């Protein structure tokens, strides 16, 4: 296994880099987009609520691969040319954002209604009450399930392999077909994923403890 790793070090590292880049970009944007849709889903305005709901239900209930293929094939056909990495990361972001929206929405709903009422009774607007009082409490509540979403996101980034995204999985497939050493290749790929996911797992637990 050592020589396999040494001989293909550059490929593994490249894949590792793309996987991390895709994961970070998708994490940041899916957290922002997911939170926005979560807030829309609890808004007093019915139109916004319906839009939020439709978005979440569509993208949460379609396979990630289908969403990614859509961006990979359809967008270049009608709009702009994008590469596999971009298409994969967009798909990953949208797919994950739907799950994050659900997670954050449930967090918002589990904050006692009295918190919102007290803030509104003091003359705060809905937005101020959300921003200063409800959301900070909601995010604290959803740290553990968000951790799960982040770990899933990293693992799901392997979808890039299907759209030539040069990620870990893609490199693994290439190395395996060149060297025929499939078992060791995929063990190494798995270990590389652990290098990313275990620290996330540990950090989320740490956050959960220090903020609780």
């Amino acid at each position, binding site marked *: 296994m050592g020589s396999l790793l040494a001989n293909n070090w550059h490929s593994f590292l490249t894949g590792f880099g793309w996987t991390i880049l895709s994961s970070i970009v998708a994490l940041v944007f899916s957290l922002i987009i997911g939170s926005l849709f979560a807030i829309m889903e609890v808004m007093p305005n019915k139109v916004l609520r319906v839009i939020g709901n439709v978005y979440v239900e569509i993208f949460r209930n379609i396979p990630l691969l289908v969403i990614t293929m859509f961006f990979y094939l359809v967008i270049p056909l009608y709009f702009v040319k994008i590469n596999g990495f971009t298409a994969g990361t967009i798909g990953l972001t949208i797919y994950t954002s739907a799950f994050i929206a659900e997670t954050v929405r449930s967090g918002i709903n589990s904050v*006692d209604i*009295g*918190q919102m*009422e*007290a*803030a*509104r*009774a*003091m*003359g*705060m*607007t809905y937005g*101020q009450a959300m921003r*200063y*009082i409800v959301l*900070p*409490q909601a995010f*604290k509540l959803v740290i553990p399930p968000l951790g799960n979403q982040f770990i899933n996101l990293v693992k799901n980034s392997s979808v890039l392999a299907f759209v030539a995204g040069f990620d870990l999985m893609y490199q693994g497939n290439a190395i395996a077909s060149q060297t025929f050493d499939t078992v060791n290749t995929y063990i190494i790929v798995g270990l590389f994923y652990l290098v990313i996911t275990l620290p996330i797992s540990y950090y989320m637990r740490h956050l959960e403890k220090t903020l609780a």
Partner: protein
Amino acid sequence: MSMIEFRDVQKYYGKFHALKDINLEIDKGETVVLIGPSGSGKSTLARSVNGLEQIQEGQLIVNGHDIADKKTDINRIRTDVGMVFQHFNLYANKDVLENIMIAPRIVLKMNEDENKKRAMALLDQVGLADKAHNMPSQISGGQAQRVAIARSLAMKPRCMLFDEPTSALDPEMIDDVLGVIKYVTSQSDMTSLIVTHEMGFAQEVANRVIFMADGQILEDDKTSEFFKNPTNERARQFLSKIIKH
């Protein structure tokens, strides 16, 4: 000059008629206690004054503004109307001092030094200056309710609504909270509407007592008259039951 005025107000929850033909005037500086059996609409009435509950018909004039009018800036009116809740509702993510300072800072844009000075003075008034940096989860219910009162007063309201402020408290904590409320209502320019089951307290602080049942106001009388000689039959039954226990 009235501070709060209900004119033929109707409130429904779906088909349930929660407030029926409410007509009520509360003058500036008055302290009015609202009593009645649970489910009678007392809390709904109090909560409609600052728009936490919306009324469907009639007019509700608070400090000269009709709050049922869509053009009325409800947030502006709420800065003049303090509210104290049964379950305190201190912001769980803020310490005691921040609980008091946040609304003056972001709603009134109060200067930070002045805000802090006032907040500490208010905490001192309710006897909790030493708890300024505790989180709400670290103080008792009675202390939390006193902080909640200080939090409302920080907005310099002209009117205070107390929605069963002692109902969720252990008996030995009630007196401290009632003491603070008594002090607040004693200020000559403060208008107060208090929903409570504490009859002794009602007798002590109220200028007027309003008795509600089934969403209607059945009796509205001077405090001494009400407790001596309630005219309404249901009010009489209610009083006799409460006083027996």
